[in-house]
């Protein structure tokens, strides 16, 4: 039981890493990036090419990819998202979904259907573990991932609350027109924020690649996990993402204990429960649901 508990916590750490970029973009720019998962997979392939084909050691590959994905995010905003935000709330959703389709299938064409993993790049670390009292073994990589998640969220929160760039990002998200009037280049600020969001995806890709493997079409699954973690955690600070990720992981682990297919199903049910609970704040009852013209 304990080991399942611990594994759930570690899984939560992984989901937190996955979800941070999505939450960051949403809280900062009010855009749900439906291509979030696809960009993580793209980063994964980038790491793979650097590591397996070019022989670059993983830490250096990560640094390089962070730079690359930052630039990709910056360009993504400049070229696509800034134009899409002007056209109402539908367009960013449609545009990012379209990009996800493009990326998924492009990656399939370029890299093929085979699963790739980053485990070969770290040698023995892939199965190294810590031993806890009571003959419990936990994977070192999972612990690193949880740590990375906490560090990433902490770093982003610190950046947002304590640095000039962070304040400008907050200003741009709270009141874009006024931010402009103060001399803030809101277009560039939003592009930088997008770059940061995509850069965090590199950490997620590393986590995914070290824990297991990925294929070109796995982006949607990652997006779904990330989104569920964000919704369960709620809006507010990025730390809520960590909470949401933990709850999701726990729900999934409990579901897995009930039925082999229960893993994913219970995660979805936890998401729906979170939606219900949030609606519950507005006098949720079957009667109010059925009443005509129920208030939004």
């Amino acid at each position, binding site marked *: 039981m304990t080991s399942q508990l611990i594994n759930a916590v570690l899984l939560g750490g992984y989901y937190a890493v996955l979800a941070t970029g999505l939450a960051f973009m949403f809280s900062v720019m009010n855009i749900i990036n439906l291509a979030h998962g696809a960009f993580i997979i793209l980063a994964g392939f980038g790491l793979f090419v650097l590591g397996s084909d070019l022989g670059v050691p993983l830490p250096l590959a990560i640094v390089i990819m962070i730079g690359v994905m930052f630039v990709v995010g910056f360009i993504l905003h400049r070229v696509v998202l800034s134009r899409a935000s002007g056209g109402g709330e539908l367009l960013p959703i449609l545009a990012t979904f379209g990009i996800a389709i493009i990326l998924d299938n492009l990656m399939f064409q370029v890299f093929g259907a085979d699963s790739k993993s980053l485990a070969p790049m770290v040698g023995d670390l892939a199965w190294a573990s810590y031993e806890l009292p009571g003959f419990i073994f936990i994977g070192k990589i999972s612990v690193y991932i949880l740590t990375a998640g906490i560090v990433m969220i902490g770093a982003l929160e610190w950046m947002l609350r304590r640095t*000039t760039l962070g304040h400008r990002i*907050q200003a741009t998200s709270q009141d874009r*027109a*006024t931010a*402009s*009037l*103060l*001399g803030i280049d809101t277009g560039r600020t939003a592009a930088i924020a997008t770059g940061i969001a995509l850069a965090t995806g590199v950490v997620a890709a590393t986590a995914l690649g070290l824990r297991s493997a990925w294929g070109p079409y796995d982006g949607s699954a990652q997006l779904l996990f990330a989104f569920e973690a964000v919704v369960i955690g709620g809006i507010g600070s990025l730390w809520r993402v960590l909470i949401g990720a933990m709850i999701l992981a726990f729900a999934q682990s409990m579901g897995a204990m009930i039925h082999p297919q229960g893993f994913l199903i219970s995660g979805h049910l936890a998401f729906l429960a979170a939606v219900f609970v949030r609606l519950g704040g507005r006098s949720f009852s079957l009667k109010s649901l059925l009443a005509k013209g129920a208030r939004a």
Partner: protein
Amino acid sequence: MSTLEVKDIVAGHGQLCAVHGVTLTVKPGEMLFVLGSNGAGKTTLLRSIAGDHQAEGGSVALSGVDVSRLSAHHRARSGLSLVPEGRRLFARMTVRENLMLGASTSREGPWTIAAIYEAFPNLAKLDRSLAGKLSGGEQQAVAIGRALMGDPMAIMLDEVSLGLSPAAVELAYEALKKVRDMGLALLIVEQDLNRALANADDLIVMCEGHVTLRTKPAETSLETLAAASFGHEEGAVA
């Protein structure tokens, strides 16, 4: 040379034309008041000059430099500041953070946080308070301070006295007069005609997007201003 020169600004919202070719100039150390009833186009005019609203025609020059093609944040960096209607502070950030953001123009000048707190002594103790929790008068002070932090050459203020107690308005104008005396050009939209008469160097009245009257306080009266706001000849019955 004028600090702010606005020529023939035409601006609208969709099919509605709100500003029909307005021209005005403000010299350094001058306060120009723009008066008019609701819907006269004053806010649209100010936003168009600031670059926050896309004007359909006309030009804006700052100390002789044409800024008409620049976006809002570039105009701010060139020295043109707008304190928008309703103050629009970042409610979830502190007073200090709001002021620091005002310095985003990266301009050289005398204004620092310390200088702002000297000009608005009541703000000093609110340094770490959330901007959203302040009173109307305190918010107005922060908004003006935030604009000053950008070290502008010209400041435009939309509805200074709206929602403020008379004492707060008094304080605000005390500060604005000091700012004017430092050489800045001020363009102020006001509903309070008495305030305008008391503080203005020049007056403009707008009605339905047109300028109906240009005058100075000494040459006019409350009745004339009111009549021009509503588009009547003085003494005519509505």
